[in-house]
């Protein structure tokens, strides 16, 4: 397959060169499979095989892009695409800057992230995995939902600037298991991200679910009073906030467009808790990394926040071109964000619940439907979901109805951070809007943040 793809790209490049055109070619091929569960049944079982070719044509400061979804062997269609985009570029209004054309200095082939065993998981294996993860937990009232998403993702690229190609192949899987009460409407969830088959662990999913199910079945849900709480965020919630921080925190483009909560003056200053360190580190295979960006820059560990000190903005090539900045190797579909673990020893929810505490703790595992209320101030809002718990000072546990958190990320990750768990875990944040785009962030399993307001408290689910 690799040879076929590279040969296709080289043929198309030769065609463009012969016509005197300047183009870059980005090939994307995905084999996606998704087994979806609802109401304790398989509600959908899908396979998609999609081949995309994205062609960008350049004429000095003019640029246009053409993407086609096509058959792998339809070289003539692809050549027509090159002709079309060259015509479009000629009509495009010139930019105020000259966009950089990717220049690959050597062939770069990276298949380290590919695990055939994961990519070729059979339908039967996935069903067996799900059955094991939920064994004995379903009842007439307690229904199973979830997904087993897995697949292979290939990126390959070449430009008329050189004969060299880049080729990346990864396998990925994301598993979500939900148990929801059909009438009471509470839901608990366990998730797993895997880059290779050996990372899948149905037993662990089962253990996590069983712990929460027992709590939720035993306790009567309560509406929490509004006010301040010491909150323990679970890794899904931390990952979601970190993802938003990527949009409006350390993106140079967002800064220049007025949609960032940090600015240039903050570089070198302490803006978060000294317990917080964030690095974009493509050495973590769990994040489905790209070790070269789409322009050809090598991607190395890039510190963003070090012990609370803001280190640098990230610059994708196009923003760097436009604003006269130096690109930082971030012209990629997703970063490999790693949030370092802290010094608090806790390795599971069960352990967290069992630890002695000096005050009540509100555990929020997941923030549903998060959005930006005010980007300049870093204010986000989202609701708890999937197994929140109020851990009382006296050791008892209360099951709360969902609550809403509307807070600035600068506060959430600021000096209110009381502790960060030592243990970290990859959390799958892959998007399947349009193309398959595997991505995970490595985050602490738990983070305690004191004195956060909840702005809404449900009286039911």
């Amino acid at each position, binding site marked *: 397959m690799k040879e076929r793809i590279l040969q296709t790209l080289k043929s198309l490049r030769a065609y463009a060169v012969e016509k005197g055109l300047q183009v870059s070619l980005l090939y994307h091929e995905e084999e996606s499979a998704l087994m*979806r*569960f*609802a*109401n304790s*049944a*398989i*509600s*959908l*079982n*899908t*396979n*998609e*095989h*999609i081949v995309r070719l994205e062609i960008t044509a350049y004429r000095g400061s003019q*640029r*246009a*892009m*053409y*993407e*086609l*979804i096509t*058959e*792998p*062997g339809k070289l003539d269609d692809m050549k027509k*695409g090159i002709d079309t985009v060259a015509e*479009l570029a000629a*009509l*495009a*209004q010139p*930019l105020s800057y000259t966009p950089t054309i990717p220049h690959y200095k050597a062939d770069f082939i990276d298949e380290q992230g590919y695990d055939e065993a994961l990519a070729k998981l059979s339908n039967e294996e996935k*069903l067996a995995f799900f*059955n094991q993860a939920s064994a004995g937990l379903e009842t007439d009232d307690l*229904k199973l*939902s979830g*997904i087993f*998403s897995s697949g292979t993702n290939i990126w390959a690229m070449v430009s008329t600037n050189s004969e060299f190609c880049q080729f990346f192949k990864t396998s990925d899987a994301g598993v*979500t298991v*939900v148990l*929801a009460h059909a009438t009471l*409407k509470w*839901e608990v969830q366990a998730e797993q991200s895997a880059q290779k088959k050996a990372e899948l662990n149905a037993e662990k999913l089962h253990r996590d679910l069983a712990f929460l199910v027992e709590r939720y079945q035993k306790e009567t849900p309560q509406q929490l009073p509004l006010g301040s709480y010491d909150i323990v965020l679970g890794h899904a919630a931390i990952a979601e906030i970190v993802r938003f921080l990527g949009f409006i925190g350390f993106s140079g483009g967002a800064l220049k467009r*007025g949609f960032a909560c940090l600015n240039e003056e903050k570089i070198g200053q302490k803006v978060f808790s000294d317990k917080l360190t964030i690095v974009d580190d493509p050495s973590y295979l769990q994040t489905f990394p790209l070790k070269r960006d789409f322009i050809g820059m090598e991607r190395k560990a890039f510190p963003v926040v070090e012990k609370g000190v803001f280190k640098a903005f990230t610059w994708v090539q*196009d923003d760097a071109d436009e604003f006269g900045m130096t690109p930082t190797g971030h012209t990629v579909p997703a970063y490999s964000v790693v949030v370092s673990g802290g010094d608090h020893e806790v390795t599971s929810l069960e352990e967290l619940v069992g630890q002695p505490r000096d005050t009540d703790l509100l555990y929020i595992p997941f923030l549903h*439907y998060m*959005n*930006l*209320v*005010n*980007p300049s*101030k870093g204010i986000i809002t989202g*609701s708890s*979901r999937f197994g929140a718990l109020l851990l009382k000072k006296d050791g008892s546990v209360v099951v709360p109805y*969902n609550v*809403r958190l509307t807070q600035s990320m600068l506060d959430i990750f600021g000096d209110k951070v009381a502790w960060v768990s030592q243990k970290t875990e990859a959390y799958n944040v892959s998007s*399947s*809007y*349009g193309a398959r785009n595997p991505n995970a962030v490595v985050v602490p399993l738990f983070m305690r943040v004191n004195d956060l307001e909840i702005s*809404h408290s*449900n009286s039911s*689910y």
Partner: protein
Amino acid sequence: MRKQIQQQIDRIKAAGATYVDARWYPVDEVNNLVMWNGNLKNADTTRESGMGVRVLYKGAWGFCASSDLSDIAVIFNQALDNARVAAERVTFPVHLAEKDIIQARFESPCQIDPFSISLSEKVAFMKKMDERLNQSGVEQRFATMTFMRKQIVFMDSEGSQIEKQITEVFAGMQVSGRDDQGMTQERSYRLNRQGDTRGWESINPQVFEENADRIVREMQQVVAAEDCPKEDRAVILLPGIMFLQTHETIGHALELDRILGYELAFAGGSFVTLADFGKLRYGSPKLTARADGTLINSPGSFGYDDDGVPAQNTVLIDKGILVGAITGRQMVEEANVKARRQIFNGSGGANRATSFYRVPIERMTNINIDPGEDGTLDDIVRNTEKGIILDGDRSWSIGSNREQFHFANEIGWLVEDGQVTKVVKNPTYKGSTVPFWNSLSAVGDRSTWSVQFVDNCGKGQPSQIMQLGHGVPVCRFDNVRIGE
């Protein structure tokens, strides 16, 4: 190709499938242009082609799609295999509601094919708008245009064959500036329905020029304004936020797959239960909402859904009482059986997929609120003692069962004793869905009603983006918490 598809449908049916359908997209094309501060950042065209096949086997769905049509038997075989495995875990066998066998063609109304307009003409228009937006206090100028056209051939094992040609035009602009604290404030305009067709003719320069001046003027007012107070007030929602309130707390809440628990893995459920139909007072008697797939010229009107069911105009909430839902063939059957009564008389024709490589699911058509009898916007303001007029969708976040929400807006105008007093910045409002709709105290007349387009509604796994519309009037809700 149609002959090949028919042969494959027949073959898979003979292999034991109870139902098979195929959606072949000979062409699905999108042209997206983005101009930022005068720079044409995106001049992108996407052209897709491929086929998606759905197979129902022993009460379970299998789906397969591919852009490789060199041997379409492979796609049909994989869909059947997927269904066979799915059939090993069935709790409620899928049964599809009856429908008519249809041989038809639908073409969305379009006078001027936007794909016949040259890139240079489109860019010249955007450039003109960009220059119009380039006024005092404006730091960022953003304009976007998206043109879509798709040809969909639907064939099923029941004998239906439908061809659809859909053309869409979306456009908008936004400006932003900084207030005295250095915080960004923004104001935007999104193209809504202009006339009865939706081709290039929708792009009326005069409408854009007027709105360009308006959003700049309003952004300048917001930049200079005080913060929105934190208190309870009546909120008067203009169509630029009313559409989203309707979308999030009526539209999504009444998708029948959500109500039946089919979206719990990701998007969430609904506070609505089957027992609520015909009984739940969803809103005040001033509220009548409908799913109208027949509304002329809106992205939520598409002739026939991806079950092959004709578009319909279905009442969802009748004078405040919940009576209907957004439905497809599978869910109505399951709902009626589970409810042990006939809630739904067949599919509402709302099962749609965003592309050939996604499976159809219940999606909003045009979720509209009927105009009311409380007069014009001026009349509603005149009859409001302490309120705030809100517009613009800056942020939205909704509870997983659509039971509560938080919205942030671009602009607010305080109303005191029937008069607009001043503009405020950073306005927000929040509430719980049913109490909120029951606090609906005024619904504007036809003069306040407009059809707003949505081009980015997300749902499903694998994720799907869908286009639709909302015809909404100006509405007032009492005792709403704002400013938090």
